[in-house]
């Protein structure tokens, strides 16, 4: 109550901030809409349910991994190990229900375990990442580089590099099943993204994640359990990578430790960045990540469907990523 005037001024200033926040989100959406428009005009058979189906099922794993990545990045970290963790999760599941680890007495139980155990395993590996980052104060990019290198090796050692081929309807429901006509993996993707979105917006944990990324020292001084928050986000990222690994192997009826999740870290990080979350931490925009992933998927689809040669496609992809990030950043500024 310094001066009456102060308050009066504060009250009369138009609240234009909102508009720009909206515009910031709009940037990525605009890129997304432009892509759709392009496809409607130029891509054969674009407007069909099957196209939607193809794109949504293909983007599901990216979104799931990128959701975890968004949280990690919000704390100012990064997780390069997600692709390798997908391989580990994907390698474990078939080993469980095919009885390579322990004898299977009841298939439903084995399938349930095949869902649960791999995710627990990758969550624990995520925890390991988190421990390196917190306990040993190793920089995230290097801490997770350890499992990026070793993780795939572990998956390969477990399977001896061999392809595991299987047919198991119960397990494959996660990728091939449909609920009310919607593919199960799409539903899973939506549920995970929605939970993360709500967590960031409405929970203490979400607030803490952002505070830790925004100013770690200050966060500690306000009583935020910085280490616990970080451990948790790396664990979540690991667990979600595991889930994505399950989907990929289920979709292919085969688990190939050499290739599952290869390059996923870059796709996920690109989705996060195109979605408007700063890689420096302190922000988390889950909706943005979702749209960012859709943009990346749509770019890929567009290039494929229009027969752009791979070499040229790389260049176009590069330009589009830059453009999308650029629009998205500009839109946030006056």
């Amino acid at each position, binding site marked *: 109550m310094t001066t009456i005037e102060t308050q009066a001024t504060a009250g009369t200033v138009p609240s234009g901030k909102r508009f720009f926040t909206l515009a910031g989100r709009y940037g990525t959406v605009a890129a997304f809409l432009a892509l759709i428009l392009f496809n409607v005009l130029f891509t054969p058979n674009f407007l069909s349910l099957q196209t939607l189906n193809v794109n949504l099922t293909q983007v599901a794993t990216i979104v799931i991994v990128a959701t975890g990545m968004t949280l990690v990045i919000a704390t100012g970290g990064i997780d390069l190990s997600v692709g390798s963790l997908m391989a580990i999760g994907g390698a474990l599941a078939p080993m469980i229900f095919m009885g390579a680890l322990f004898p299977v007495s009841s298939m439903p139980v084995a399938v349930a375990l095949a869902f649960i155990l791999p995710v627990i395993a990758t969550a624990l590996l995520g925890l390991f990442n988190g421990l390196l980052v917190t306990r040993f104060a190793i920089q995230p990019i290097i801490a997770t580089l350890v499992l990026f290198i070793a993780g795939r090796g572990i998956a390969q050692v477990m399977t001896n590099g061999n392809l595991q081929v299987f047919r198991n309807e119960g397990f494959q429901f996660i990728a091939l099943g449909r609920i009310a006509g919607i593919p199960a993996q799409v539903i899973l993707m939506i549920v995970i993204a929605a939970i993360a979105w709500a967590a960031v917006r409405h929970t203490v944990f979400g607030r803490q994640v952002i505070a830790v990324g925004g100013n770690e020292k200050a966060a500690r001084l*306000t009583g935020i359990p910085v280490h616990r928050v970080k451990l948790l986000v790396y664990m979540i990222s690991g667990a979600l990578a595991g889930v994505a690994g399950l989907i990929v192997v289920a979709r292919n009826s085969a688990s190939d430790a050499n290739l599952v999740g290869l390059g996923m870290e870059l796709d996920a990080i690109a989705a996060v960045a195109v979605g408007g979350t700063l890689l420096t931490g302190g922000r988390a925009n889950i909706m943005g990540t979702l749209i960012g992933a859709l943009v990346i998927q749509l770019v890929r689809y567009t290039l494929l469907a229009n027969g752009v040669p791979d070499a040229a496609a790389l260049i176009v992809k590069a330009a589009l990523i830059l453009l999308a990030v650029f629009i998205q950043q500009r839109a946030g500024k006056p």
Partner: protein
Amino acid sequence: MLLSMHGICKSFNGIPALRSASLEVGEAEVMALVGQNGAGKSTLIKILTGAYRRDEGSIAFAGEDVSFNMPAESQARGIATIYQEINLAPQRSVAENIYLSREPRRFGLIDRRAMREGAVAVLRTFNLEIDVDQPVAHFSAATRQMVAIARAVTQKARLVIMDEPTSSLDEREVAILFETIRTLKRGGVSVVFIGHRLDELYRICDSVTIMRDGKTVATGAMAEMPKLALVRHMLGKELAAFEAIAKDADEGAQRPVRLSVENAGAGVRVRNVSLTVREGEISGLAGLLGSGRTETANLIFGADRLERGEIRYKGQARSYRQPAEAIADGIGLVSEDRKVDGIIPDMSIRENMTLALLPKLARSGIVDRARQDEIVASYIAALGIRCTSPDQPIKELSGGNQQKVLLGRWLCTDPKLLIVDEPTRGIDIGAKAEILRLLRRLADEGLGVLMISSELEELLAAADRVTVLSDGTSVAVLPRRELSEAALFAAMAHQVE
């Protein structure tokens, strides 16, 4: 005229920060630039140096119209600036920081010897004997401030701008700074001096420019501007006199002790500190820079680990390993360096303010938005925080308003013990009285306050009792009735052998 800025306008995100401000500085003139928090002083300076781009207006420097696109250009033209938030590269050494962007060279290579010797020499003129090869991050805010000043005065500039240079300095160092300013002036250099401590302004400045709400409302010779008139221009209204509001110490002597620190020590910075804070009192902690006050606060708060001695809170021995534990006990700490230890820059005012309150604000992990909004709105009003909306990122606030948000952060947790480390640093005179009054009111309601301050005036006005630290050791406890500037000085200068 060396500098004349006219009709400067600047908006951030469509919200005006400057509306036709002006500033004129003559040759060899020391110009005070004053105004409330958020009046636009720092913004005006940043426009001059080229850190921000102006929307409208004209700037003439040394007889020429200028328009700097980046600080490097204004620097090259002879404008040296000490920015409000100490602006140094923390990991670079002191010597490098002083000479960054104009390193002495030999054959195109950096002349390291010249650089080191030059740095030592200029710091010696500030009575500062430190290892100039150490990164500046190693030093306290005060030392860094002195390094920033040294950097500016060695630039052989025609105009030196100082944005609140004294906010973390003690009297001794302020005196050195003023001597430097006089030397500059004798050499024909002009100075723009921004500050909130009016007495200092009267001591050093020739003229004054007063800003309010982004406009220049008055200018004139310092000597012809009575304090009351100055404050009236600044605030746009009269200010009640800065009354002494402390109560008699004896009254509190029977109150229960909330916090007692006995022979506490950790590392080399805190050697042997004892102090008490009672329920309902404001206990002061005084000392020269580097006497270990901040470290003592960190120890109590669990930000650093206690190594020796004992800390008792409400009669029970406590040794917090994490601030979280202290917070759970009802302790709060408003830290000295708001940029590093305080604000989460990208977060909104709302979220910054309720960060420490979060655990209490949530039901099964979900934040109660309605209650949050209510609390935030009430503190924005109570503290007079100048912002466009609670959604505004805190980094967009002026320094003083950021400080108020941080104060609000702890007040809203309803603490039992509040440690405030330089609570009014960078806060304007109107708000300062308001904050001290607020602390007093809360103390009357039972809060124990431990107030660290370098401003004796402030301690004299607000504290019920002052513990004096010297070199990490508590050397005296002065009760209210023995408090005087002279007594404090004597105790602070005490040497521990």
